[in-house]
């Protein structure tokens, strides 16, 4: 049994040690916003926050989360109106949308740590996430907008 906080609520899960957070979120806790893309920390579709820092949930063994706090796209804001989410709609970022939960979580983590990132800092930070639809330019614009409009 592993106890941790998930989207500001305590949660207990009973899965074998070594099971990755991604699959626990999706198939055990039924939070489907976090996506499977590669399983090897290459694409970032699975990104969540662990104690506020971005993490590839496909790499996080469940037992390492004892006492920690996890935030997923479902818990980023109560109403889907986090500044990053609003900026993502204003800039019409998503296309197929599959990678966007991970993109948004990573962008939110960046802005939480660095509210006024430079273009170079955005590019560097967000290069962890793949988007096969190539929405990258709009991702940059949306982060700059979220930074501006907070």
């Amino acid at each position, binding site marked *: 049994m592993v106890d941790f906080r998930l989207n500001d609520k305590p949660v207990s899960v009973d899965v074998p040690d070594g*099971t990755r957070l991604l699959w626990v979120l999706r198939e055990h806790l039924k939070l489907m916003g976090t996506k499977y893309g*590669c399983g090897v920390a290459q694409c970032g579709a699975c990104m969540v926050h662990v104690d506020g820092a971005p993490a590839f949930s496909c790499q996080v063994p469940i037992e390492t989360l004892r006492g920690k706090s996890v935030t997923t796209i479902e818990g980023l804001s109560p109403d889907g109106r986090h500044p990053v989410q609003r900026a993502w709609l204003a800039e019409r970022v*998503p296309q197929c949308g599959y990678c966007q939960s991970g993109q948004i979580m990573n962008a939110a983590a960046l802005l939480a740590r660095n509210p006024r990132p430079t273009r170079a800092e955005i590019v560097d930070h967000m*290069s962890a996430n793949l988007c096969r639809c190539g929405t990258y330019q709009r991702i*940059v614009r949306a982060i700059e907008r979220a930074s501006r409009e907070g």
Partner: protein
Amino acid sequence: MAPYIEGRHGSAGAPHVTRREFMVGAAGLTFGFLLPGCAAVATPEKGATLATSTGNAPAFSPWVSIATDGTVYIQSPAAEMGQGSLTSLPLIIAEELDADWAKVRVVPAPPDDKVYGNPGFGGVMYTAGSNAVRSYFQPLRVFGAQVRRVLLDNAARRWGVAVSELTTEPGVVVHAKSGRRLGYGEIAAFAEIPAKAPAITPEELKKPEAFRLIGKDVMRVDLPGKVDGTARYSIDVEVPGMLYGAILRAPVEDSAPVDVDEATARAVPGVMRIVRLPFGVGVIAQTPWAAFAAKDALKVTWDHKAPGWGFDSDQALERYAAAARDLKTAGKPWGKAGDAAAAMGTAATVIEAEYRCDYAYHAQMEPLNSTAAVSPAGDACEVWVGSQGQTMAVAAVAKALGIPAERVHLHNTLLGGGFGRRGHRDEEFVVDSVLLSKEVRRPVKLMWTREDDVRNGRFRPMSAHFVRAGLDQSGRIIAWQHRLACDWVTPYMDPVRYRGILRENDVIAVAGTELATYEIPNRLAEQLGQQTGIRTSPLRGIGFVANKFATEAFLDEIAARRRLDPVALRLELLENAPRAQEVVIAAIEMSDYRRTRPGRSLGFAFVDYSNTMVAGVAEVSIDRATGVIRVHHFWCAIDPGIAVQPDNIVAQTESSIVYGLGLALTERISVKDGVVQQSNFFDYRVPRLRDVPEMHVKLMPTANPPTGVGQMATPLVAPAIAAAVRAATGAKLTHTPFLPERVLAAMRA
């Protein structure tokens, strides 16, 4: 309030249930429409009777239902994989219907070719080829206008006035003389629908200046759910009692398992069943991690009867190149004009060059997956999948189970990317889930891992291009020959379409060789199809990507021989194509093409992609020590005719450029002894944010019918980069992707 997708927030079964509910509950008007032929049929039922129409290929399905509360439900026949036509198609109906967009609800259409089939694909529901808006535009406009006319006629009868005195505002019929108004929902409460649909002439359709929705950038209906985690893809489906499946597929097509050592796999906790399949070995487990672990633990030997064993892509490409150069062997002709052979014989100069392209992989972000629930008796099946071909998926499931298509109930979800991978006639990843569910008669969610998705990928073919041009004394091109040696694609990915409407032309492979827009009087393109046993597929940009690389790079070669500016040569060849000239000139102007910039160089390319005109300029720098190319800017001008959703066209063009960048620079699948050598994103490198240039897209809509926008810029990228590298270094890049070692070799040559 913004329109939304029915069922977006619901469980997996919601789209179907919701649809039935609105049929039962709306008590409004239901309009049907039969494609092709634009023959609208209005059904006199008030909606309720259609409630019995489930996904089981209803005899009659509505395109539009108007509820008495004024809500307008519009079915969208397109699969949504990021391109936006889930929104654009209903928008076209809503425009002519003069619907209040805030009251529109978009409903994914059930699988029924007779009602929803794409006229551009012989009436099959198939979302591909940037073809949805292009093919549905005119029939949907006419249909929207017919629905509006029925509402007007009913209002005229109710008020006892001539219909000519009536107009509409969004969602309301207005009689200006008396100041009376009737909402569409109010009319729905009493309306009678004629047995025969009213005739609408093209002149009666809205003039572009009267458009309220087309060209106005409405919010795509799928976007809100894509920023808050609620968008549902097939991988997110939950069905009560569901198990999880994985399949170890044979690495080489048409191979079967011989010996299966399943002891280790069986010992994985949670594993329930190991299933022998004709093409692999399946695992059914209680959890996805158990299914994946057991699949990885299987030890299988395969029979080696299939032709793909022994295939080596490096060696094969040499054979393709030899076949392309062997002028004694004629290829299958395509894009013939005049008499290329005769004209070549009279040419003052003949120029020849060879180009090559490697296999490429789709890399849609959502690995292939499907969930199936075969009934206990095995005589029916429910399927949840994101397919580019809804009715093809139904047919494939029915065939796999030996049941009628009416017994298959499909829920087509959002697709986490398509790019051509999810529209093969056999829909193999859908059948995977059905075969496993059939074993246990319980719902099974079947997921391919990323490694499965790469290793069992179906690829853009490998190709060698031998291109020849005959020039007259003045240097004008009088003869053109493009000999394309590549794996067959269409016969493999869709034999039905290949033998049917394509008349045995491998259009997926040869498209883009035809050069119809350039003023070259004698042309011959030939395909030398290669039987290899390697799995192939349409991939974004299809044949255009490889073929336009060859033809545009070859034009640069010809320009160099003539000591002519590459753009000047294009303008000469486009002298009778004013739309093409416009985008060329725009791309030149926006990139300030004539300005030299230290350490960087520019390259140009033009493509007429199914009547969408695109021109692009790349600004690149080359690290001469490492051979690494960096693209700093990409300018693109695009004329797609009428722009239905302008900002989305810009987004699709940016997307196309990024896709083209990967194919040009880094993306490569190689095959040894029939086995794919790559497995994940660390060895199949797609562009990241840091790799992407600043993109500058100029949308240049014209009053022409809308053409496609989903992939048109992709073929521009490789030739534009090659031209820029040539301008800077003189090196001729002839083989995509432009890997650093290839760039270094070209610079040494």
